[in-house]
């Protein structure tokens, strides 16, 4: 398990400060991009608990993302109009969903798990698409309220810092988790799952734990998305959305805590600028992935790590 330890903390601090000061630029576009970056980071960090730690390749993570987004929308419109309560409801819904889906899918071997996640993700997509009365069908739900009884996010800057607070909360708690005993246990699944039972731990129970944590945090990302965009639509549950945190994590490096965050940065930058130039973000991402898979499966951060070690051991000043 490669950890850059001190360096990771530095990068986290830098990212936290940078995202905190973006709004000072008063550029709405940068604020928007930074919000997308934070939301994708949360989504990807949650994904890496399954992928990097537990060695589970999920093709249906958007299930929790979409359920978070939709439950936020439906709850704040129909039941109680407040973003904070809505966010908590999203977490609760995603958590319960994670428990249910986890129990059904995690008993199986890894390949079947992957296929089942695809099925369940698309199942939600179908539900969101067809259940017009509840979800608005292909039109989705728009006009999601930002002003609430407890918290008012009408102001775009307030929205930004709301997202920012959750970003910090998720990063800090997941970092603590990553260094904790439960983090270690779940990572053992990714290292040598066959050996885990002989150390006295139940693979199934550890997987469920990972799945619940992962799912609930993805739900937060979904709720924040609903707040940012004000609309939700069924594509949020499509398998291509599930691919986003996977791509981001691969690019950044799944073996590093900061990996999903770095990857999200690259992902957001490329999809925005490649789109601006010629709508070729899939091409660019695909090429980056090919390069990384062939050259550096630990992602961009592994490349950085290698350069760093080379510097230290050869005494070269690069």
């Amino acid at each position, binding site marked *: 398990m490669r950890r850059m330890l001190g360096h990771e903390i530095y990068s986290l601090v830098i990212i936290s400060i940078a995202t905190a000061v973006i709004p000072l630029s008063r550029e709405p576009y940068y604020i928007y991009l930074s919000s997308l970056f934070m939301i994708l980071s949360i989504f990807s960090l949650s994904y890496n608990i399954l992928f990097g730690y537990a060695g589970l390749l999920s093709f249906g993570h958007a299930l929790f993302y979409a359920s978070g987004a939709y439950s936020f929308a439906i709850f704040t419109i129909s039941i109680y109009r407040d973003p904070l309560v809505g966010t908590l409801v999203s977490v609760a819904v995603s958590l319960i969903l994670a428990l249910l889906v986890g129990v059904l899918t995690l008993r199986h071997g890894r390949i079947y798990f992957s296929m089942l996640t695809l099925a369940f993700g698309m199942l939600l997509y179908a539900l969101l698409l067809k259940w017009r009365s509840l979800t608005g069908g292909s039109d989705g739900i728009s006009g999601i309220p930002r002003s609430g009884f407890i918290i008012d996010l009408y102001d775009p800057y307030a929205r930004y810092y709301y997202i920012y607070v959750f970003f910090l909360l998720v990063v800090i708690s997941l970092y603590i988790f990553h260094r904790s*005993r439960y983090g*270690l*246990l779940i990572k*053992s699944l990714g290292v*040598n799952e066959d050996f885990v*039972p*002989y*150390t*006295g731990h139940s*693979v199934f129970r550890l997987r469920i734990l990972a799945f619940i944590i992962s799912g609930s945090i993805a739900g937060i990302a979904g709720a924040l998305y609903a707040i940012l965009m004000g609309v939700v639509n069924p594509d949020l549950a499509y398998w291509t959305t599930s691919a986003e945190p996977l791509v981001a994590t691969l690019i950044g490096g799944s073996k590093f805590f900061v990996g999903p965050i770095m990857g999200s940065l690259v992902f957001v930058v490329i999809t925005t600028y490649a789109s601006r130039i010629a709508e070729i973000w899939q091409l660019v991402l695909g090429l980056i992935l090919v390069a990384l898979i062939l050259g550096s499966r630990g992602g961009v951060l592994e490349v950085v790590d290698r350069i760093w070690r080379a510097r230290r051991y050869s005494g070269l000043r690069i």
Partner: protein
Amino acid sequence: MEGEEILRVENLVRRFGGFKALNGVSLSISGRGVTSIIGPNGAGKTTLINVITGRLKPDAGRVYFMGRDITGWPPHKIVRIGIARTFQIINLFTGLSVYHNIAIASLSRGNSADVDGIIRRFGLDEYRDHEVIKLPHGIQRIVEIAVAMATKPRLLILDEPMAGLNSGEKGLVIERIRDLEKQIPVILVEHDMDVVFSISRRIIVMNRGEVIASGAPDEIADNRLVREIYLGE
């Protein structure tokens, strides 16, 4: 505690397709000390261990540990109830450090504070933060045993721990086993006869899925049936 029965196995049968790996195996382990299980390749030794430790389910027969029927229990439950094992081919979290390997195992016992104590007891201090995969083979075997002991077992099963070790490394492992056998009963599956005859209190001989002899080392050495099997090798 000589008479206390730790493990009892009754008429275990296990087939793989048409092949009977275990053909009605029964045995009983009581008290401390090393009980070795020997036999030619394919005799069913590892299959027996796999059934006892939950890696395989038997087609027939029962396994009792401390009086409890543990037949068909999943491996992690069997570890929790007190049976720990090592593997023929080294099975560890090779990408993690010695410390983390032992920590993970001791976490199933709730208290992780023990880890450095275990490291010290097994003489692994200098390897504490090293990745297991980078360690010499003999040290890896000792880490395996340390990890197994970290689960605070009441029975330890070692599956061919001498495989692939040079004589110096074997010496180290034998030393460890001699320490351990004073604390808990040990089952040793081994091919190295020198080791087996020097440390065992009792030897069980298997062939073709059956137990064909059981007794003290000198009894087994004199046993005609056993000699036939081994001379034929």
